C-alpha cells in the first residue's frame, strides 16, 4: 500500500465572555495556539491532526446573542455571526454561573458549528474540555482509522468498525411499503409528501457529500422469511433478535434493486403485518420489545414494522383502510439513515448536551464529521488505486496507456495533491471537492476497459507462438552461418592463391 502523510487542520476559535476569562492564561488575549496529535494508522500512513486555536474575547454582538434565555436561542443567534466555512469551530466560554447551560451540563453543542462551554477550573481544565469537544465535533482517532480501514492491519479494528457506508459519489434511497395481506389492510402512504417534508431537508444538507436519488414502491404479498412466535403473556407476536438476519433475504429478491443505479442502494422497508400476525413486535437480545419496532443492517438499509390496530368490532368490513403516520415512520427511517452513515450520538461524555438537529436531520458539525472522514477516505483510495495501477504497469511491460487514461491519472494526482494541501490549511470544503474529483478521475483511469491484462501477451506465450514459426526457418540459416564461419576460418589459414 502506498504511504501517505495526512495533515488535518481544524481552525478553532475560543471566545471568552467578559466574566469567564480564566486567571491563568499564558498570554493576554487575543493569542494563537496549536494542539497537535498524531494518529498512526500503520507503518506508512500517519495522520497528524492540528487544531489551530485562536483565543479571543467575545465581540459586543456575540455578547448580546449570549444574553438569550436558552442555549438554543443563543445558538441560533450566534449562527448568524459565525464564520460559515466548513470544518471551522467556534467555542464560547460562558461564566460558571451562567443560566444558559442546565445544571450538571458543562458543554452544550449546538446545531451549527458552535458550542458553549462553562468556565471554571482554570486554563488546563479548559484545554482538556476543548480536547474532548473537538473529538466530538470534528473527528476522532477511531473515525479516521475507520475511514482508512483498508490500511489498518487486520485485527486492530473489530469486524464491526467498517460497517458504515463507504464514500461514494452517489446513493440511491428506496422506500418500500410491504403489504402481505391486502385483503385485510388497504394501506395508503403519502410518501411523496413525506419525502418532500421530512427527507428532502436532510438530503439537501447531504447533497454536498453525494448525489442522492429517491424512489418508492409498494409490494403486495411480500412476506417476511420468518414466522413470528405468538407470546401468550402479551398476546402479541414476537420476532426474536436472532431471527432478524433471515428476514431480509426473501424480500430482497423482490425489491428490484437490480434495476436501480450503479450507486449503493439504501432500502427502507415499512412492513404492515398480516391481520393474523398482528400486533408484531421485535424483541431485542434481552427479550424486551423494541420501542422503535425497527432494525437496520449495515450498508443495506432498515426495516420498520408498522402495527395496525385491531378493528373495534369483529364485524367491520375488510379491508381496513390504513393511513400511515408518515412522521412517525420517517423519524425512524431518518435515524436509521444517520446510523448507516455513521452519525450516532451514543459515545458522548455525560456532561455534554447535544442539541437535536430537528427537521434538518443533521447538525452542521455532523456534516463536517462526515466530510473529514470521507475526504481522508477518498484521498487514501486515490493513493491506493494509482499505486496499484502503477504496479500493474510494472508487471505488464507492454501495456498501452491511452491518452485519456493518462490525462485522468494526471488529473487524479493533481486533485489529490490539492486536497492534501487544502486539508493541511483547514479548508474542508475545497479539500472535499478536490478529493471527490480525484476519486472520480482515478476510478475512471483504473477501471478503463482497455487495461485488461489479457490483451497484452505474456512473454511465455510469445515464445510459444514464435518458436514453431521461426525455428524450422532458422535451421537452414543457422547451418549456412556455420558454413560461413568455417569458410572464413579456412580462408584465413590458407592465403588465397595469387596468380
Amino acid at each position: 500500500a502506498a504511504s501517505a502523510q495526512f495533515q488535518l487542520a481544524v481552525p478553532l476559535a475560543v471566545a471568552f465572555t467578559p466574566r469567564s476569562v480564566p486567571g491563568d492564561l499564558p498570554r493576554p488575549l487575543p493569542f494563537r495556539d496549536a494542539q497537535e496529535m498524531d494518529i498512526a494508522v500503520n507503518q506508512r500512513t500517519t495522520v497528524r491532526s492540528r487544531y489551530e486555536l485562536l483565543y479571543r474575547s467575545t465581540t459586543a454582538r456575540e455578547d448580546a446573542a449570549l444574553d438569550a434565555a436558552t442555549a438554543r436561542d443563543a445558538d441560533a443567534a450566534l449562527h448568524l455571526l459565525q464564520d460559515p466555512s466548513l470544518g471551522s469551530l467556534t467555542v464560547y466560554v460562558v461564566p460558571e454561573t451562567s443560566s444558559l447551560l442546565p445544571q450538571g451540563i458543562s458543554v452544550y453543542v449546538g446545531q451549527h458549528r458552535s458550542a458553549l462551554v462553562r468556565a471554571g477550573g482554570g486554563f488546563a481544565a479548559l484545554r482538556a474540555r476543548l480536547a474532548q469537544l473537538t473529538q466530538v465535533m470534528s473527528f476522532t482517532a477511531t473515525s479516521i482509522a475507520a475511514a482508512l480501514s483498508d490500511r489498518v492491519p487486520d485485527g486492530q479494528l473489530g469486524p464491526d468498525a467498517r460497517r458504515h457506508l463507504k464514500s461514494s459519489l452517489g446513493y440511491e434511497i428506496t422506500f418500500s411499503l410491504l403489504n402481505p395481506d391486502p385483503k385485510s389492510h388497504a394501506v395508503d402512504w403519502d410518501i411523496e409528501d413525506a419525502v418532500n417534508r421530512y427527507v428532502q431537508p436532510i438530503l439537501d444538507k447531504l447533497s454536498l457529500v453525494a448525489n442522492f436519488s429517491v424512489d418508492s414502491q409498494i409490494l403486495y404479498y411480500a412476506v417476511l422469511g420468518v414466522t413470528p412466535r405468538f407470546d401468550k403473556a402479551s398476546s402479541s407476536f414476537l420476532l426474536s433478535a436472532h431471527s432478524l438476519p433471515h428476514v431480509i433475504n426473501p424480500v430482497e429478491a423482490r425489491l428490484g434493486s437490480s434495476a436501480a443505479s450503479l450507486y449503493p442502494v439504501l432500502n427502507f422497508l415499512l412492513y404492515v403485518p398480516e391481520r393474523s400476525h398482528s400486533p408484531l413486535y421485535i424483541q431485542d437480545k434481552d427479550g424486551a420489545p423494541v420501542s422503535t419496532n425497527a432494525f437496520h443492517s449495515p450498508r443495506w438499509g432498515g426495516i420498520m414494522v408498522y402495527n395496525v390496530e385491531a378493528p373495534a368490532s369483529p364485524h367491520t368490513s375488510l379491508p381496513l383502510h390504513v393511513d400511515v403516520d408518515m412522521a412517525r415512520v420517517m423519524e425512524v427511517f431518518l435515524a436509521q439513515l444517520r446510523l448507516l452513515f455513521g452519525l450516532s450520538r451514543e459515545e458522548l461524555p455525560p456532561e455534554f448536551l447535544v442539541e437535536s438537529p430537528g427537521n434538518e436531520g443533521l447538525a452542521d458539525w455532523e456534516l463536517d464529521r462526515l466530510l473529514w472522514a470521507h475526504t481522508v477516505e477518498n484521498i487514501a483510495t486515490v493513493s491506493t488505486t494509482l499505486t496499484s495501477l502503477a504496479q500493474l504497469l510494472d508487471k505488464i511491460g507492454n501495456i498501452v496507456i491511452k491518452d485519456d487514461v493518462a490525462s485522468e491519472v494526471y488529473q487524479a494526482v493533481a486533485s489529490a495533491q490539492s486536497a492534501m494541501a487544502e486539508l493541511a490549511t483547514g479548508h474542508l470544503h475545497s479539500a472535499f471537492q478536490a478529493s471527490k474529483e480525484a476519486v472520480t478521475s482515478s476510478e475512471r483511469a483504473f477501471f478503463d476497459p482497455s487495461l485488461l491484462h489479457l490483451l497484452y501477451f505474456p512473454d511465455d506465450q510469445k515464445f510459444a507462438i514464435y518458436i514453431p514459426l521461426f525455428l524450422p526457418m532458422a535451421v537452414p540459416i543457422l547451418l549456412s552461418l556455420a558454413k560461413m564461419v568455417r569458410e572464413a576460418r579456412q580462408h584465413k589459414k590458407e592465403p588465397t592463391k595469387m596468380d
Partner: protein
Amino acid sequence: FQDQAEQFFRSGHTNNWAVLVCTSRFWFNYRHVANTLSVYRSVKRLGIPDSHIVLMLADDMACNPRNPKPATVFSHKNMELNVYGDDVEVDYRSYEVTVENFLRVLTGRIPPSTSRSKRLLSDDRSNILIYMTGHGGNGFLKFQDSEEITNVELADAFEQMWQKRRYNELLFIIDTCQGASMYERFYSPNIMALASSQVGEDSLSHQPDLGIGVHLMDRYTFYVLEFLEEIHPASQTNMNDLFQVCPKSLCVSTPGHRTDLFQRDPRSVLITDFFGSVRKVEITTETISLDRDVAGFESKLPKDELATEPLKYAEQLPVAQIIHQKPKQKDWHPPGGFILGLWALIIMVFFKTYGIKHMKHIF
C-alpha cells in the same frame, strides 16, 4: 466475553456475491451446465438474490434441440431434480462467456454501457463465491472450445480485485480435471480454494441418464449438491465439513483444498458465509424528532426539468463524421529489436551464400 468470542470468529462481511461459470458448450457437456445450475439453485435457496449473482452459461441445454425434455436441466438420473426451474436468470449466455468477459467481470473493467445485472458490484465487505466448471488441464481451463484461461491470469485477476478491495473473502471452487492446478498460483490474501481433483487426476462424471442420453452431473458437484441440500440459512455447518465431501471412494479423484491464504480458521467459517446471505442486523434504538407542522419544504436544489420537446432518438453514431473522415495517418516506426535482427540475419546469410555478384540478376 461470549460476545467477544463470537465477534472474533465472525466474518466481517455485509453482503454476498456469487460468480458461477460454466465454460463448455455442446450437448455432451450437459453435465457442466447442470453443475453450475445446481450450485446456482443452492445459492439462491440460501438467500443470495439474483441481483448479486453473475451466472455465466456457455451453452443452452434447456432449450437445446437435442433435449428430449425441453425447458429442463436435470441433475439426478430418473429426472428427480430439475435445476432449471422457472426462476433462472442467466447473465452471460452462450458466446458471451469468454475469458475476456470473465476477467472483465472480476476486475470491474467493464465498458460503461454494460447493464447492472452483468456487473460484479462488490465492495470491501463482500464475500464472493466463485464456482467454475468445464474441461481443464494442468494450469488452464478451457472456455468454449476455443480459448483458455491460465492459472496465472486467474491469480493476477484476483490480485487486481484485492488491490481495489473488491472482496472481503473469496471462496473459489473448481470442478474440472486437474482442478488443483488452477489454485496453485494464488497469492492474494483471504482466498480459500477447493478443487475436485489433484494435478494429474481426472474428475469423473456421475451417472448417465438413459432417457436424456448424457451424463447429468460431475461426481464432485453431485456430492457437494447433496451436502448443500442439508444446509439451511441458520446452519452452523463449517468449511471443514465441506472439505470432507466426496472422499476418494465416491469421487475416484482426490478433492483438494487450499487455505493457507485465508486468515480465519476454516473451522470457524460457516458455509452460509459464502453460500448464503445472512446479514448482520442491529436493532434501531435511536429516533430523531421531527416537527410535524413544518410546511412543504422548498428544496434548494434545482429539480429536473420535465421534457417538453418531443423525444427523438439520440444520435448514437456520428455518421456524417465517420463517412467523411480521412483515414488517420499512422506513424511509421522502424522495426525494432527482434524483427530487425532476424531480417538482418536472413539478408546476410542470403548474400553470403549466393554472393554479391548475383545481385544484378535479382534486381
